[in-house]
């Protein structure tokens, strides 16, 4: 697998005069009055250039491509696990073919299962605006949002499920239903001998009671349910398994990058790699606490030299994101060393490069699902400072695979500490990468699916 993306390299020219397709904002002005820091090298700020259209998707990896990452022996284990499942069939059903974490996962998982001769198909729910408005409302309500479940909403949900049910066949050995939208397809269970699995990717720790009670009888007709964290489990009569979300180490966002490309991205964004770089990658959302990160940086900067990179997206199509971005720029107070990047959704390589260039990565979320940006940081062996919320402590074991913080002050202290204790920082990064390798990679996810199929067939 090549690490190079020549097309992207060509696109990423830094040219003051041709800011074509720019979707970036950089705040820069006076530096803080930090004693002893006046001598540092200044990288001239330029208007960065990013392609205004998504790049073509890279080829889907094959199982052998993961060998250099997890080792031949672990790949062999995956093949052994798959052996008695050869020839079995699986149908995956979700609600969208593009966009979102589930589609991203299935785009990689389905080809790998097929390569192992576990014949896996993928179908997508269809429906009109009324149906998707209901399912969106269900989604938010299951996350704990306010909602009034009406009879009309129930009927729209069930009627569209019925139409989809009639459109699809369910003769497979396993039917895997992702998230609540297609949950009512369980009505077809009686049509075949297959095992039915409900994979819930969303946080069910505090669901809207009405919506959950509507869905629960459906879920209890499945053979098994899968959740992403123990806290997301509900009292159910069926076994519930834990599948962590995962990253693909061969994806654009996580693959190894040539250092020349990393340098090019930093040059493009005016980031000085000769000085420490503290980075938070996340959309401009108050729950990610970007203002807290800037405050922590300002506290830390009284003692240590560093730059702060806040990179993310979401401000283009999210009215609240625009407001948060403005607040972030105001909080940055024209500090030349705070680099704020509002990136388009197809900036995976740029984000990868920014993470790899970073000395420390921060994810100071106030609320979080699993926090895959943390997984990405750990995978790149970066010492990571993260909020102790959601799925983050599963990944960041305090003082072992990173550090957890609960306040701006704590975050500031840890930035100072890790920047001045590089050996500890290095060890945390190393442990973090091993943690991801063992538990949160696509290959670990594939292994879990194979295990579950075997267990449900009594092949353990």
């Amino acid at each position, binding site marked *: 697998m090549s690490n190079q993306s020549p097309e992207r390299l060509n696109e990423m020219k830094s040219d003051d005069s041709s800011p074509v397709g720019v979707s970036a904002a950089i705040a820069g002005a006076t530096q803080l009055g930090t004693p002893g820091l006046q001598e540092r090298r200044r990288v001239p700020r330029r208007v960065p250039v990013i392609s205004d259209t998504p790049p073509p998707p890279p080829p889907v990896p094959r199982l052998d491509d993961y060998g250099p990452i997890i080792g*031949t022996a672990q790949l*062999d284990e995956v093949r052994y696990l798959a052996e008695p499942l050869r020839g079995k069939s699986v149908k995956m059903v979700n609600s969208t073919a593009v966009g979102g974490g589930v589609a991203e996962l299935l785009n990689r998982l389905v080809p790998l299962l097929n390569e192992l001769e576990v014949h896996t198909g993928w179908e997508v729910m269809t429906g009109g605006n009324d149906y998707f408005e209901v399912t969106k409302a269900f989604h938010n309500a299951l996350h704990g949002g306010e909602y009034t479940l009406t009879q009309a909403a129930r009927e729209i949900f069930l009627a569209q499920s019925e139409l989809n049910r009639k459109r699809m066949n369910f003769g497979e050995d396993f039917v895997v239903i992702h998230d609540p939208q297609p949950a009512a397809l369980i009505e077809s269970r009686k049509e075949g001998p297959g095992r039915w699995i409900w994979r819930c990717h969303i946080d069910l720790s505090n669901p809207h009671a009405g919506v959950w009670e509507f869905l629960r009888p459906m879920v209890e007709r499945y053979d098994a349910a899968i959740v992403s964290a123990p806290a997301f489990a509900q009292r159910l009569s069926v076994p519930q398994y834990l599948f962590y979300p995962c990253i693909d180490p061969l994806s654009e966002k996580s693959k190894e990058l040539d250092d020349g490309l990393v340098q090019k991205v930093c040059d493009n964004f005016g980031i000085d790699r000769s000085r420490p770089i503290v980075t938070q990658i996340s959309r401009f959302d108050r729950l990610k606490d970007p203002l807290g990160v800037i405050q922590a940086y300002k506290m830390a900067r009284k003692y240590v030299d560093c730059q702060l990179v806040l990179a993310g997206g979401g401000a283009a199509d999210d009215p609240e994101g625009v407001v948060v971005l403005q607040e972030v720029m105001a909080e940055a107070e024209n500090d030349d060393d705070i680099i704020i990047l509002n990136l388009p959704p197809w900036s995976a390589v740029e984000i990868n490069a920014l993470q790899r260039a970073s000395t420390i990565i921060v994810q100071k979320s106030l609320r979080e699902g699993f926090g895959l940006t943390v997984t990405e940081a750990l995978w790149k062996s970066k010492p990571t400072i993260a909020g102790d919320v959601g799925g983050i402590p599963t990944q960041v*074991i305090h003082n*072992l*695979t990173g550090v957890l913080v609960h306040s701006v002050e704590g975050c500031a202290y840890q930035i100072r500490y890790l920047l001045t204790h590089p050996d500890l920082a290095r060890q945390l990064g190393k*442990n973090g990468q*091993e943690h991801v390798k063992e538990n949160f990679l696509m290959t670990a996810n594939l*292994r879990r699916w194979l*295990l579950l199929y075997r267990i449900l067939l009594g092949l353990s």
Partner: protein
Amino acid sequence: MNSLPADHAARQPAREPFHFSSSANLLQIGKEKAATLGEFLEALRRCPDGSIFQHTFRTLEEHHFIRQGFSNDFAHWAYNDCGEIGLGEKLSAIDVREFTSIADLRGRITATVEQHLQRNKDVAGRPARKAFYFGTSDTVVLPTAEVAHNLPEFVDALRRIAIHSIHHHFIEARLRLRLQSNDFSLWLEAGLGLSAYAARVNQIDIYTSTLEGVRQKIVSILEGALRKPLAATPVNGATQ
């Protein structure tokens, strides 16, 4: 390896070949959940054996890359989420190698928590910062292609096998064998008569070494056997 004497005793064929296996585990979320140490104690008493296994033996595999500060999930929770440092230390000091049955291990953990709560009456009902969710492991044992007929083959295979295989044979084996030993040491002793090396391998400290470190230490010990054996018992009439 080529520089070693060809007729070295440690190169004799083993009585039986060693077939390397591995295991894969899937975590099932249990019914027990504890928000206080009092609830934790109750859950410890009634949770399935698989939960005790998951949070002690299995967690060592999940966190195999950490050398210090992590022993088992119970200790980690008591220390970090309950703020009970003394209890955390005591639970952390429980060494799974001393147990050949889950019942005994559960007994020790339960007694440790009970004693702590008896001495500290006010902590049983204090809410933890985060709840403890009991899980349990569904395990599938996997064959591998690796087979060793003698010590050199064994050492070569050790270098190649997955870390899960090391855990399976070196740590989980205690429960399967119901002996305070492991598959590797048993084979070294019974298959090759290398009792002293078997004992040295069994002494490797899994709490101060990563699993990769365990692998390296076993390889290092056995490379020593290939160079200069300690006292060895003859096998198949071979002189060692």
